[in-house]
């Protein structure tokens, strides 16, 4: 009890028991590796290899295309086979570097850093930037940008997003249990950048073992503490997490730094540790391969760029043919046409469901019940916003604060009339923002 939280939110079926107790298993890629040049927010990366080049694991194959961008590294050795548009998880075609895997897994030498505390601020941020670290929880925002706020002395909280509030996902959970020293090591590196900050590990209380373990480990760390959070979706939403931990509220026009916060997810903080301490760029990550269609749901450490089909194979293949496969969690993930899609830095999970319950849904009339209002973590009126969206009323949409929507999907989840509220709102939000950019 006494766990912190935010107003609103929903309690979907957790589904975490499927993969929760499966230790992380390493998977080596067999087939080609595909590296989309846009797997982060910002400018696409620019290839620094050409077709026919030999590459080694850990070799940079594309460099950042600007400040808000991130380099990409080969995650296996082989030959560059093509640089061509490939289908990615969200459904778009994105220019990608294709590497034919030679199966040798030869790797470049990394230079570890013996004394991280001796590094300067610039050196640390540069290492993070060069290693291609981005927000690996799903957003893909380049981490070095996040770590470079205008006024670093005003940062008071470094929040590790250990909520993992999306149902089914257990990758962060396994990371916390199996690699806690890397998580805490990464946190210490970030704290080194911000003299006035304290580190908070925000963990949902459905993971009492993680809370206990990490509490034990940080008991002698004066600057790091564990904060238990109520198990409620979207507890791991950035704005909701900041509110739960600090009581500070930010809106769409503000950055976490405006509230004196920097939020990074578990996998990202571990990547920071690898980058700064071990000198290793981002070439692999842990994802949960789960769902009732998967034979042996589990958590896998694999080379980024590996085809999703290989990960399904690693999880024993399909027990039953799925009807829907989702990159990410069931609340905010992207449904995919097929498995022939590469994993990227932001692939947190592959969820394979035997039944697509959304396909069975027949939306009926809104009865104004207000359940979406109660559920909305942003305190909006989703049913009204969806109506404005469907009718193209952009002024009304803005007046009712539609642009504050965080697209968590809680409104669609609770709607008893089964209306696709989040879809209508997201579409309208895109249109309004696009119109604003034109001006």
């Amino acid at each position, binding site marked *: 009890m006494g766990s912190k939280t935010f107003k609103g939110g929903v309690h979907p079926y957790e589904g975490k028991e499927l993969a929760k107790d499966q230790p992380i298993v390493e998977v080596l890629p067999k087939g080609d590796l595909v590296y989309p040049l846009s797997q982060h927010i910002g400018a696409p990366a620019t290839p620094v290899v050409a077709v026919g080049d030999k590459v080694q694991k850990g070799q940079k194959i594309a460099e950042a295309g600007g400040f808000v961008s991130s380099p990409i590294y080969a995650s296996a050795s082989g030959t560059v086979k093509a640089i061509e548009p490939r289908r990615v998880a969200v459904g778009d075609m994105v220019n990608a570097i294709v590497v034919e895997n030679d199966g040798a897994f030869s790797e470049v030498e990394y230079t570890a850093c013996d004394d991280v505390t001796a590094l300067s601020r610039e050196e640390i941020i540069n290492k993070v930037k060069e290693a291609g670290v981005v927000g690996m929880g799903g957003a893909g925002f380049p981490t070095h940008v996040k770590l470079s706020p205008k006024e670093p002395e005003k940062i008071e909280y470094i929040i590790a997003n250990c909520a993992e509030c999306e149902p089914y996902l257990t990758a962060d959970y396994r990371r916390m249990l199996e690699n806690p020293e890397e998580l805490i090591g990464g946190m210490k590196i970030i704290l080194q950048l911000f003299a006035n900050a304290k580190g908070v590990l925000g963990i949902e209380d459905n993971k009492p073992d993680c809370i206990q373990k990490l509490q034990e480990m940080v008991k002698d760390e004066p600057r790091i503490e564990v904060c238990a959070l109520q198990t409620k979706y979207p507890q791991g939403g950035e704005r909701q997490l900041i509110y739960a931990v600090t009581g500070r509220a930010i809106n769409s026009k503000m950055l976490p730094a405006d509230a004196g916060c920097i939020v990074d997810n578990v996998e990202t903080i571990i990547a920071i540790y690898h980058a700064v301490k071990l000198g290793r760029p981002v070439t692999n990550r842990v994802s949960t391969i789960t769902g009732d269609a998967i034979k042996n749901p589990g958590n896998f450490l694999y080379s980024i760029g590996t085809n999703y089909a290989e990960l399904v194979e690693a999880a024993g293949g399909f027990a039953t043919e799925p009807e829907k496969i989702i990159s990410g969690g069931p609340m905010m993930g992207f449904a995919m046409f097929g498995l022939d899609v590469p994993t990227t830095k932001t692939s947190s999970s592959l969820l394979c469901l035997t039944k697509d319950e*959304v396909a069975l849904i027949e939306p009926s009339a809104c009865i104004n019940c207000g359940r979406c209002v109660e559920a909305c973590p942003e305190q909006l009126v989703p049913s009204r916003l969806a109506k404005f969206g469907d009718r193209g009323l952009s002024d009304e949409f803005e007046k009712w604060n539609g642009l504050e929507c965080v697209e968590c999907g809680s409104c669609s989840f609770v709607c008893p009339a089964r209306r696709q509220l989040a879809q209508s709102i997201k579409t309208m939000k895109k249109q309004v923002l696009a119109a604003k950019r034109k001006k």
Partner: protein
Amino acid sequence: MSDLYHVSSSPHVRSKDTTSRIMLYVIIGLLPTSLFGIYNFGYKALILILVTIASCVASEWVYNKIVHKKETISDLSAVVTGLLLALNLPPTLPWWEAVIGGVVAIVVVKCLFGGLGQNFMNPALGARCFLLIAFAADMTNYVIDSYTGATPLAAMRNGEAVNTMDMLIGRTAGTIGETSAIAILIGAIFLILMGVIDLRIPASYIITFIVFMLLFSGHGLDGNYITAQLCGGGLMLGAFFMATDYVTSPITPRGQILFGICCGILTGLFRTFGANAEGVSFAIILSNLLVPMIEKITIPRAFGQVKEAKAKEGGK
């Protein structure tokens, strides 16, 4: 068969709640007072309840058939309307008048405005007010235990003494479903526990009404009088089951409180200064008409939309 998997916009899971389940809960919530009404007024009440529900459901079915709309009676909302309407009728009402009431509620008040979710006025109350005007004598002919009795509110107006205990239990004259405050509260507590309704509207309605009566009724701080006003008419049924109708009340949280206040003031006004002893039905449907305006001035402030300075300080 296509070898492509399903795609759709997130979220990919849904809660188990459905419109018909909510309506079913409302029906269950109305059972205690319905059963008490049947116990209190006898088989005539039962017949009236069944006839009114049948009239509502049949009206919706026929209307949808005629205008070639998808059948909607399975959402159970017509059953709720029928039951609510019946609970608002005197047990002696001729059955054919109740049938007309059902048709008016469903066809005129609900379907002509677009069906479920689109009506701007509570269908049951709209129909009740229609019947009150059309069949004034029958609609105010209250009989209990085969003798004609005034409702407690009417009796008080005439300066007669009333027994508040009778009113709490419901052994008084009145419409089928309004007499027993206890039975209504049992159903209301069920709905609150199931998350179907919350206290915003009923509480602001009742509190406002009490304040209004204390100030303007001319009875001052007379506990007996206030209790009788609360339990002697349609206020309890109205506050918990009709003002809380989703479709015709505001969706904004602050709007709901304001709506309850409007209902409370109007009820007090009608009961104190009106020609009739009762005023709940008219108060609620008039407040229904104010809902669009109420919503407009109560658009909730989004999360984090605080004054910049406060956010910087990190105000809690």
